[in-house]
């Protein structure tokens, strides 16, 4: 734990050394929410019926979609990014010469980005609430748990990407494909039942479909966890299977990288 904390602290110090970037990163969120609010208000009459089982209010619906999509992008891109950056700078090699295991190093290296995104999500949702989005604050803990599960279901794509990065020095089209499909068919901007029926099977294969549905019902409608148990169960299944497969793949990639001596070659 103290190693993880030390890495998060170091990332925090680096992050705060870019003061301007930090301030604009938070400030831009407020600027982003306002046009979303007006567009959502304009689309409300059109969307109301389609989203009635997920809060019925389009601004809250899309706000939750945007926040979740932000975490999804981070889960898919952060690990390959850390591997790419640390291989080319030589820091990965330096970390691996310590007795700390690679999973701890990687967890420490990406955690700050998640914590920072969490802070950004809080700013977004608070701004949304100020603008009139109905948030069931009492269900925040359950919502955070579901969001955590969504991250766990998508982090394996990041781990697959990291393995590809070790093998081929590129993730190929994997992150873009996962993010693109999830963005279009996972219910970020519109509920999944409005997409063409022939795409329903693709939508059903995406963890985001279940995660977002559960998250919106809990956070926008204040539904109890038991009422979204099926969606949470499927999401957990995705997380467990994908985590196991991706960890195995990454272990193989790391073994190969040590064999081929490519850990510090970009």
């Amino acid at each position, binding site marked *: 734990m103290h190693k993880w904390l030390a*890495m998060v602290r170091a990332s925090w110090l680096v992050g705060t050394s870019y003061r301007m970037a930090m301030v604009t990163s938070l400030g831009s969120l407020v600027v982003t929410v306002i046009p979303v609010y007006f567009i959502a208000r304009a689309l409300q009459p059109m969307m109301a019926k389609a989203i009635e089982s997920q809060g019925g209010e389009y601004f809250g619906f899309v706000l939750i979609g945007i926040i979740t999509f932000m975490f999804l992008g981070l889960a898919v891109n952060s690990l390959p990014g850390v591997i790419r950056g640390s291989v080319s700078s*030589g820091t990965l090699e330096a970390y691996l010469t*310590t007795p*700390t295991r690679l999973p701890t190093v990687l967890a420490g290296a990406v955690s700050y980005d998640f914590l920072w995104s969490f802070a950004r999500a809080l700013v977004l949702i608070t701004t949304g609430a100020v603008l009139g989005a109905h948030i069931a604050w009492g269900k925040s803990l359950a919502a955070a748990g579901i969001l955590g599960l969504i991250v766990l279901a998508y982090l394996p794509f990041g781990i697959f990407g990291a393995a590809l990065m070790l093998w081929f020095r590129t993730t190929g089209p994997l992150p873009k494909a996962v993010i693109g499909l999830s963005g279009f068919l996972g219910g970020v901007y519109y509920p999944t039942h409005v997409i063409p029926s022939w795409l329903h099977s693709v939508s059903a294969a995406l963890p985001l479909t279940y995660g977002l549905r559960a998250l919106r019902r809990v956070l926008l409608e204040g539904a109890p966890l038991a009422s979204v148990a099926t969606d949470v169960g499927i999401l957990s299944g995705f997380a467990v299977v994908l985590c196991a497969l991706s960890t195995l793949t990454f272990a193989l990639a790391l073994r190969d990288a040590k064999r081929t*001596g490519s850990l510090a070659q970009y």
Partner: protein
Amino acid sequence: MSATAISTGAAEKNRSDRERDVVVRVDALVKRFAVRRGWKAMLRHPRAKEYATALGGVSFEVARGEFFGLLGENGAGKTTLFKVLASLVTPDAGSVTVHGFDVVRDSERVRRLLAPVIADERSLNWRLSARENLRLFAALHDLRGAARDQRVSELLELTGIADTGDKMVGQFSSGMKQRLLIARALLSRPSVLLLDEPTRSLDPLGARRFREFLREEIVARQGCTVLIATHKAEEALELCNRVAILDKGVVRAAGTPEELSRRIVGERYRLWTLDPSHLALASLETRGVIHVIGRGERDEDGWTPLELEIPGGPRVASEVLAHMASAGVTVSSFERGRLPLAELIERIVESRGKEGARA
């Protein structure tokens, strides 16, 4: 021989290493890397693989407190050898142990005992201060609390960057960054330190100060065993008790610079004579007793300096001197010199190359 017998033998060897003073043992180490092939070759023979041998059966031992140099040209296999020692690259065959612990099976233990100094400055976090860089790596080495802060302060002091410890590393000079890299490697109080071309980005004065620091502080005071990979022969000569000459992944020779000089080319002498073309000298050369490798300018008094190599050690050299005196060669001075290490390496590599070609 059964697998059990082999593993028992290896365990015995490791135990005896721990009891004796062998700190690093490299035994018949082999490492090959797949060669990157062109598109044409890949399409023609998709399953075929070509390999380049980086290390072709390297063996040597390093004792406690030794300053051991690995000399060789670029591409000789020095960096690969260091990466195997640091458990960053897995060997294909052979074994490497540090204090008796295998670098593959006991890699975590080895990482507590051995620290490579990664010479790449970019491996430091330039947006953090020197102190924060060290704090981070101290945590990764399981140091925490007051013990961590004390060790960090000690090392900043030791490496002479305490005054600038709270300054961002991006503002450091190359020499200061090298010192910080050393400090980082020393965090866990390693007993073995690996230095790969440590002075490559330093100016001559900075390099000399850095070598003094290594000799006086790291070896003499901290008691570290140091392995240094370099292609600068003078650096190895100044620092090392023993050197191994690595060429195309093979140790061509190992020993003290003096031993190598004696073993490979005999010893070098400088002779001042009035008769550089004397028949006795020509006869000794024809018989292969001496090799005249250089002839200097004749001075105002008529003396000519000759650079000689006399294989066979001091006894043969004194016999040569006696023979010259009895044959009437006028000699004013006959003194022993030393073959520059750079030349020695060149000769070793050349001589092994010729042997290989003959074979």
